């Protein structure tokens, strides 16, 4: 079975890892990758990490990207453009609470549009 994939982009690798561990308690099968911190694992984001994460979680059913603060958003948008993939979307939702909802919805086999809609509806 395939799922919508999730990418967790945070300035802090701890936040991204923590969100993943929170979700993994509940949702085992949905592909989730973190893109936390800069290349040197400092505070910041890395477009290369984001791109790598996108390609790892893409199972053909689309990818949702969550981010924490504004500058991560710009890197995420660039990564999406550079990926050239369809159905890779950045979502405006709280990274912890939003990704949790998305993971549960994706785990129920929902389509990208539906997952996105459910996340939006939760806030």
């Amino acid at each position, binding site marked *: 079975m395939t799922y919508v994939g999730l990418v967790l982009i945070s300035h802090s690798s701890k936040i991204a890892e923590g969100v993943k561990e929170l979700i993994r308690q509940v949702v085992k099968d949905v592909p989730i990758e973190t893109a936390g911190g*800069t*290349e040197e694992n*400092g*505070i*910041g*984001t*890395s*477009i*290369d990490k984001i791109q790598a994460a996108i390609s790892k979680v893409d199972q053909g059913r689309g990818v949702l990207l969550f981010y924490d*603060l*504004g*500058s991560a958003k*710009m*890197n995420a*948008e*660039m990564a999406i453009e550079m990926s050239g993939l369809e159905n890779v979307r950045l979502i405006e939702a709280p990274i912890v609470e939003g990704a949790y909802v998305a993971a549960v919805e994706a785990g129920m086999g929902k389509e990208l549009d539906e997952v996105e809609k459910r996340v939006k509806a939760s806030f």
Partner: protein
Amino acid sequence: MEINATLAVQWIEKTNEKIQENKEYLTSLDRPIGDGDHGLNMSRGFKEAVEKVKAGNYPTPADVFKDVAMTLVSKVGGASGPLFGTAFLKMSVATAGQQVLNESAFVKGLEAALDGIKQRGKATTGEKTMVDVWEPVVEWLQDNGFEPEGLLAEAEGAMNATKNLTATKGRAAYFKEKSVGHIDAGAASSYYVFAALAEVLGGK
């Protein structure tokens, strides 16, 4: 005035020199109304960009700009990475295929860079960002052509004018009215980009 790949590489080298010299200063601008990493971000990005372009053998300025863009995008790690990265990428696309850029072609490249920054950051002038240096400088070049001292003065004035603005984009926006009284960090690094250009064009 004409710009070939060699001059383009010199522009990047000169920009890097200024950024390395002013790394602490740039960080100090980012500290009171940001996260205090702008100097670090820019110095890391431009150091790598210079290493990359010095090692290369480029037929056109566009090829130089493309490698600069990709390096900044990968290495900077903060908002300035995708912003300067997009600027150089758009400049590369707008000048693609031309071995030598005349004044009008190069200014077109800078216009594309400015548009790229504005699209990427969804910012306009008056929001206390690097756009407040890029836009007046590009307009000045459109009106006046390349004149190193005028260019330098315009860039410096624009940078200083960000001091009185209230930030509505980027990290500084969280500080709202408290952001007044500080020069924007990205405006300062953009000033160095144009100061380096003025020097390279002025033959220094």
